[in-house]
């Protein structure tokens, strides 16, 4: 029971807590290094389990004009098995469920637009999309990066756990719903219920947000450069720190995204935790403590 009490947090702990980093852990298999001396590097590929050893300088193309998503996804996997580390997907034609379930290091360049559920369930690849994406892009992403040049639909980055998901244009409603880690960056505006039930991670909105921003968020941090139509239940304004600004500067320069007013225009939204019972003790545990 001694672990139930603790001393006051240090300055660094306080700052990291304010940024939503205090309990955040690196997620995704590609961020963990495994080494099995018996199986060796040849089997695992750089020590990562069940991944292919790819060469980023080996480049190949897929023309998706006359292919459905199932065959495109199978072809991506085949090419990774053949060692291709850079794949260009031509003519995706806004089809659904393209480039999903990639659990490997890979440079994937999508020369067009995706439909719904694009690039979902990924763990590791760096994806660049020249066009637009439909609903639920990057859903359940574990690690890696997705950079979208145009607009995105609703449920952008639903339930992501890690990695960077960046849209340079506008996105739809419920952006980052249920996100549990990672970073979502929106270069333009976002719709209603952005950050709904957010649990961890950081979201950066350079433009405006629709109503109920951060509604019922448990934790995590939202930075907004424009104006939200309204804040959601239990979402409150936080205090921007130098640490926040340094992180924003570094992150946004990395993806060449910046609000009109620069870093100084950002404000911060955190959970008010009035509805918070996330880490509370179970009733039986409370009895033991008492």
């Amino acid at each position, binding site marked *: 029971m001694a672990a139930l009490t603790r001393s006051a947090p240090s300055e660094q702990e306080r700052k990291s807590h304010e940024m939503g980093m205090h309990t955040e852990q690196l997620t995704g298999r590609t961020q963990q290094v495994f080494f099995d001396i018996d199986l060796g590097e040849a089997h695992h590929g750089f020590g990562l389990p069940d991944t292919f050893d790819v060469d980023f300088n080996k480049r190949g193309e897929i023309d998706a004009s006359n292919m459905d998503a199932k065959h495109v996804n199978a072809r991506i996997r085949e090419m990774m098995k053949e060692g291709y580390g850079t794949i260009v997907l031509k003519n995706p034609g806004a089809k659904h469920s393209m480039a999903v379930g990639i659990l490997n290091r890979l440079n994937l360049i999508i020369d067009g637009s995706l439909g719904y559920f694009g690039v979902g369930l990924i763990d590791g690849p760096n994806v660049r999309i020249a066009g637009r994406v439909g609903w639920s892009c990057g859903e359940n992403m574990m690690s890696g990066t997705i950079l979208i040049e145009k607009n995105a639909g*609703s449920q952008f980055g639903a339930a992501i756990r890690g990695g960077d998901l960046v849209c340079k244009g506008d996105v739809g409603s419920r952006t980052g719903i249920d996100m549990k880690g990672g970073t979502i960056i929106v270069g333009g505006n976002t719709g209603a219920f952005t950050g709904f039930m957010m649990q961890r991670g950081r979201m950066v909105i350079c433009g405006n947000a629709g109503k109920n921003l951060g509604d019922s968020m448990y934790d995590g941090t939202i930075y907004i450069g424009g104006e939200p139509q309204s804040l959601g239940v239990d979402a409150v304004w936080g205090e921007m720190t130098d640490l926040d600004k340094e992180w924003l500067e570094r992150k946004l320069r990395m993806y060449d995204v910046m609000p009109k007013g620069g870093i100084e225009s950002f404000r911060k939204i955190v959970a008010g935790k009035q509805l918070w019972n996330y880490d509370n003790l179970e009733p039986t545990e409370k009895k033991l403590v008492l």
Partner: protein
Amino acid sequence: MCGIAGVIHRGGATGVGQEMTAMLQSLRHRGPDSTGFAVYGVTAADEYVMRLKLAEAEDLETDHKIRDKIRDRQAEVDKRLAELGVDTLAVEEPTPYAFRYRLRYSGDTKQLATDIEQIDGAEVLSLGHALELIKDLGDATRVSQTYGLGGFRGTHGIGHTRMATESDVDIRSAHPYWAYPYNDIAVVHNGQITNYWIMRRELERLGHRFMSNCDSELLAVYTANNLEQGATLEDSLRASIKEIDGVFTYLVATDKELGLAKDTMAAKPMVLFESDDLVALASEEVAIRAIVPREIDTSDPYDEEVRVWQR
């Protein structure tokens, strides 16, 4: 789930029948039960096109006397048209139960529609100078081929692929719905309306008629009622967001306009493409790609968004 789509050209008539067929066929996975089109062509000012059905498609399978009944019903339609002084210019019969009448008439079209619908089994699907409303069971390609829609030329249109959730798989419950008795107004809808019965009873008390138990029909009747009260299409769309509960995205077309309304939760999808000469919108971008097969910039309308485009 359902899929909806719409297209409006700003530069005159084009192959809108073929375009709507391609768009709706690419949305087939959102609803394979039935497909419907409301397309707007060019008709002489004193002429009307009336689309009507005199039986349900499944009646052909279940009622061995249905063909005789349809013949009798059509004779009654012709008789009533003659009594009203309607000049019947042409009659087409794309299916044994669906008919297209080209008419010349200078009287009250509400009276005309009411008189026809008093015939047992008859339902006027649309009546107007420009609107032709076609709906049947099956996917877009099948319906389009059956009704010869591929060659239809017009300025704009809306359409729907239906996955039946609230009501039966039949033509009566298929979209689009004509905003009876207003000429040239049609509605397609994706969503669920949760205050349907409250709203329906209110509208029925005002004298409006419902032909199905499909919640989407409410939007057509609601729009008709608002227009009757003098509202513009945009006024009606905005009012619907406040007065109608549920999750919905719907399109309304008139002889000159195409309108969009999205509910307060933005729970139903819509993707929009706008250019100088064309506006295309659909539940999924893949439908827009079916008629604009190049890289384009598209966007999602937000919650409570209302848009109206003119042809």
